[in-house]
């Protein structure tokens, strides 16, 4: 909850920004594609973590992702809305859906919200399959390649959105919202007696989370050019959203980012060597992290590894 910026941070951030801007010139097209996929996952991981800060576990981010994806794709298919506007529309619609879902279920405490979110994503998937004339059904919807297949432009778009997400998380961390979110997570009853309206802040966190997840969905549909309900509403996406921040370290800016990089690296390696291996990896990582490193990689680094490099105090 520290808001001061040191010169070191400013220089480091500027260097990172310049590197990111010239990044597409350095790497080849395939690696650029991997980077885009990784950034997309980072956006979803960070969005999930925003909601997790209020103590709510969403296992249905795929529902919001799918709403965003289909909104963008169908708007393009039916009325030829420009892709970026379609993504924005997807983000807004996901937020509206999250408002109704959150308003109804976030009053409940504990596991109910998590269960409802799973049901929500699954229900959407079924609805999509049953209404093929509106939604394209099991055949899915296809759109032409984003920016005529120009990967560099897609990279810059997703980079901007990622930067925006990180900025929003930073804003949350340095504002009074951080106090409200943390207080609700630690003890909702006490937070309530101290003047915090728990439902309001949980819904707010869910809305922010939904907006970016919806945008990610819209981007995915255009970037991938083809979506089907099984995939965009699938449990796989919901699980990915939560494994990455848990692995990296919850309730931090860097945690979801680091977690995503490592998981994507593992996933890519396994994809080449061992099909569907990444799903096993997700499971294993979840078990190991929950049992042995509840604060994720960041916590492990801060508590166990970092002290090893420090000069021992001389007595």
């Amino acid at each position, binding site marked *: 909850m520290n808001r001061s910026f040191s010169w070191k941070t400013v220089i480091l951030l500027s260097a990172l920004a310049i590197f990111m801007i010239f990044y597409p010139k350095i790497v080849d097209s395939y690696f650029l594609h991997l980077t885009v996929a990784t950034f997309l996952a980072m956006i979803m991981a960070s969005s999930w973590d925003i909601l997790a800060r209020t103590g709510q576990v969403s296992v249905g981010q795929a529902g919001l992702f799918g709403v965003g994806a289909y909104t963008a794709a169908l708007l393009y298919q039916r009325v030829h809305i420009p892709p970026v506007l379609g993504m924005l529309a997807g983000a807004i619609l996901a937020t509206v859906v999250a408002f109704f879902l959150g308003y109804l279920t976030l009053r409940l405490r504990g596991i109910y919200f998590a269960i409802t979110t799973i049901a929500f994503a699954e229900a959407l998937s079924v609805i999509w399959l049953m209404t093929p004339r509106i939604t394209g059904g099991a055949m899915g919807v296809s759109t032409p390649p984003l920016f005529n297949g120009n990967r560099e432009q897609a990279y810059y778009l997703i980079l901007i959105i990622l930067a925006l997400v990180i900025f929003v998380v930073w804003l949350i961390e340095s504002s009074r919202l951080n*106090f409200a979110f*943390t207080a609700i997570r*630690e003890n909702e009853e006490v937070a309530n*007696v101290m003047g915090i309206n*728990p439902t309001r802040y949980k819904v707010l966190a869910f809305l922010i989370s939904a907006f970016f997840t919806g945008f990610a969905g819209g981007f995915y549909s255009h970037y991938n050019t083809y979506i089907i309900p099984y995939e965009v509403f699938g449990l796989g996406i919901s699980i990915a959203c939560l494994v990455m921040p848990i692995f990296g370290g919850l309730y931090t800016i860097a945690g979801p980012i680091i977690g995503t990089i490592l998981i994507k690296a593992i996933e890519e390696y396994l994809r080449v060597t061992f099909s569907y291996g990444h799903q096993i990896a997700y499971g294993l990582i979840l078990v190991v992290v929950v049992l042995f490193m509840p604060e994720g990689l960041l916590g492990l680094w801060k508590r166990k590894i970092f002290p090893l490099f420090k000069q021992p105090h001389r007595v």
Partner: protein
Amino acid sequence: MTLLRVKDLSKHFGGLTAVQNVSFEIHRGEIVSLIGPNGAGKTTIFNLISGVYTPDSGGILLDNEDLVGRRPFEVCQKGIGRTFQIMQPFPHMTVLENVMTSGLFGRVPKISMRQAEEETKELCQLVGLGDKQKAFPKNLTVADQKRIEIARALAIKPKLLLLDEVMSGLTPTETGEAIKLVRRLRENGTTIFLIEHVMKVVMGISDRVIVLHHGEKIAEGTSTEVANDPKVIKAYLGEKVEESEK
């Protein structure tokens, strides 16, 4: 002048009557104690006033404004601060952050982060946590954790402060300090309503004492009046042997 007026308050949990037709008033600037044997309904009354429970019937008026049906955060913003009998600090927040949270959200109109931080620091000095602002609650003593509770309740600048057994579990020295603190708060204009088991404390600081037994108010008055009331003695010590055999 009346600050809090509680009228015919009742609350049942299933078949159990926790509070039955309780009425009382608390005047501005008073220190009032609520006493009674275990299970008498003292904490239930606090939970009813602070909005954690909704009463089955009856009224709660703060400055003539009805509080029945308001949720806890609204009651807090109306100016009622409370502590919990079992200390419940936020474990992953420092002392400063614990207290600041309350200041940031319990105050109407809202105050800035900077102002909240400054006020919190002053408050920590006042309750005796001045040098422990960066500590985490789990590393503090029971007495210091109770200080967090009090500081959090005070951070909303309450008109009425509800203290639920803040002195229990403290050493005699710590109790002495806590009594001084309560007196100082009253001098600063806070009205205090407290639940207490330590009779020495009740007798020493209360302007008035309300006695609860089986959810009903059985006596009310100055500490001397209450201490000599036969109904109170009966509730606490039981009947005399000859009487009960009659």
